């Protein structure tokens, strides 16, 4: 079933589900379980109710949009926000295998911002951190400055793949290759690489894709989409369970297309308006009361249960 048409999806949403959806827009945490590629809302998180994952499962955490170097009114202390998130992750009942960062590590692509981010991320008590670049990480010289600090496999490119816990992970760079006036794109080279990368995988392999900008068009006037995402999703569609984790829009949004579930994450820097929000003509940082900021920033924990193709997602704001 293709559920990209909102009208077709609407009758299936109960009032309770719709309220949960609304809660996710305003930054409250929602627990998601993805069964066979279809996410199901399990309920809102409360502090401390993150159940320990069962044995034989792979757990990892997602952070996004740390914008190290940002020091404006919307969040004068992005380092503090990142440290709080890392403390939350370090305190999880089961230590995640690794952490993924879905881009905008830095705010202005400056070498000192990348350096500071790398030092800070070493405070995570996990084996490693996987990153994909955001457009703020490619301001001056494409991905060159970013790769000097965050070259995952020393291949000199910002996309990669690896296998862990029976899951195939793919990191993509979808912040360059734009044509003026349009969205950024993966580009032909990367699409060809993705095709080769997926070629040998059995269709029962769960796939997790990491990319900064949403892999579907959330709001084109603000550049909230990937020009050639349809081509990438066509390559992913044959797989039984595909989970796409994005950042960029600093808020939680979810979309399901058949076996492909797409999710955006909260930021650890500052909130952005909801797509096309009335009265706000551009996607600039939103300044909220200091007491509210922690509720709009947060982390995400994912658990893969081996053999069941099941991904449980827990979005946790910094303040509950």
């Amino acid at each position, binding site marked *: 079933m293709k559920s990209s048409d909102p009208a077709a999806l609407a009758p299936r949403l109960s009032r309770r589900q719709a309220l949960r959806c609304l809660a996710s827009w305003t930054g409250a945490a929602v627990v998601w379980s993805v069964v066979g590629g279809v996410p199901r809302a399990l309920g809102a998180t409360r502090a401390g109710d993150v159940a320990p994952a069962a044995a034989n499962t792979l757990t990892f955490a997602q952070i996004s949009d740390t914008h190290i170097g940002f020091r404006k009114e919307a969040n004068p202390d992005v380092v503090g926000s990142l440290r709080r998130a890392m403390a939350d992750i370090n305190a999880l009942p089961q230590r995640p295998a690794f952490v993924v960062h879905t881009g905008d590590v830095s705010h202005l692509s400056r070498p000192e911002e990348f350096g500071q981010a790398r030092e800070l991320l070493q405070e995570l008590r996990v084996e490693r951190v996987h990153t994909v670049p955001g457009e703020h990480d490619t301001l001056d010289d494409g991905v060159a400055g970013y790769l000097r600090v965050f070259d995952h496999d020393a291949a000199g490119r910002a996309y990669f793949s690896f296998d862990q816990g029976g899951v195939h992970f793919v990191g993509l760079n979808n912040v360059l290759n734009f044509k003026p*006036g349009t969205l950024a794109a993966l580009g032909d080279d990367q699409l060809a690489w993705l095709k080769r990368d997926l070629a040998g995988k059995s269709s029962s392999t769960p796939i997790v894709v990491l990319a900064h900008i949403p892999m579907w068009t959330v709001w084109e006037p603000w550049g909230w989409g990937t020009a050639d995402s349809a081509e990438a999703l066509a390559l992913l569609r044959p797989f039984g369970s595909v989970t796409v984790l994005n950042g960029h829009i600093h808020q939680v949004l979810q979309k399901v297309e058949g076996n492909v579930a797409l999710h955006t994450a909260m930021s650890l820097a500052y909130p952005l308006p909801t797509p096309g929000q009335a009265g706000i003509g551009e996607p600039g*940082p939103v300044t909220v009361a200091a007491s509210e900021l922690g509720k709009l920033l947060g982390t995400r924990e994912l658990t893969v249960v081996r053999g069941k193709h099941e991904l449980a997602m827990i979005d946790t704001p910094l303040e509950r």
Partner: protein
Amino acid sequence: MNMIAWLQTLRWWRIGTAFALVAFAASLMPSAAFAGGDKAAVNITKFAFAPKDITVAPGTTIVWTNHDEAPHTVSSRDKTFGSKGLDTNDTFEFTFASEGDFAYICAVHPFMTGTVHVRKP
């Protein structure tokens, strides 16, 4: 000096005088197109270049200023000019020596577009 050579000299002198007069007039009017060294401003506000289209004379320096909290860049399509990431209140300038149409975007937000039209008045 024969008559023809003298007339030629006179003709060159006249042309020279004409140039001198133009140069003198230009010096009296700092905004005159031939004066060169003029500056023009483009503001980057609310994720847009303002004015989006600007027409200037050759020799004009355009100064872009980012007034947004978000960073932007000024990146020409044909790579003739390009800024680094501009933080709030950062500026970037470029002097347009020759005529032409120079389209540019913000590399962070490629939906932000602008064009500099360089024309002799």
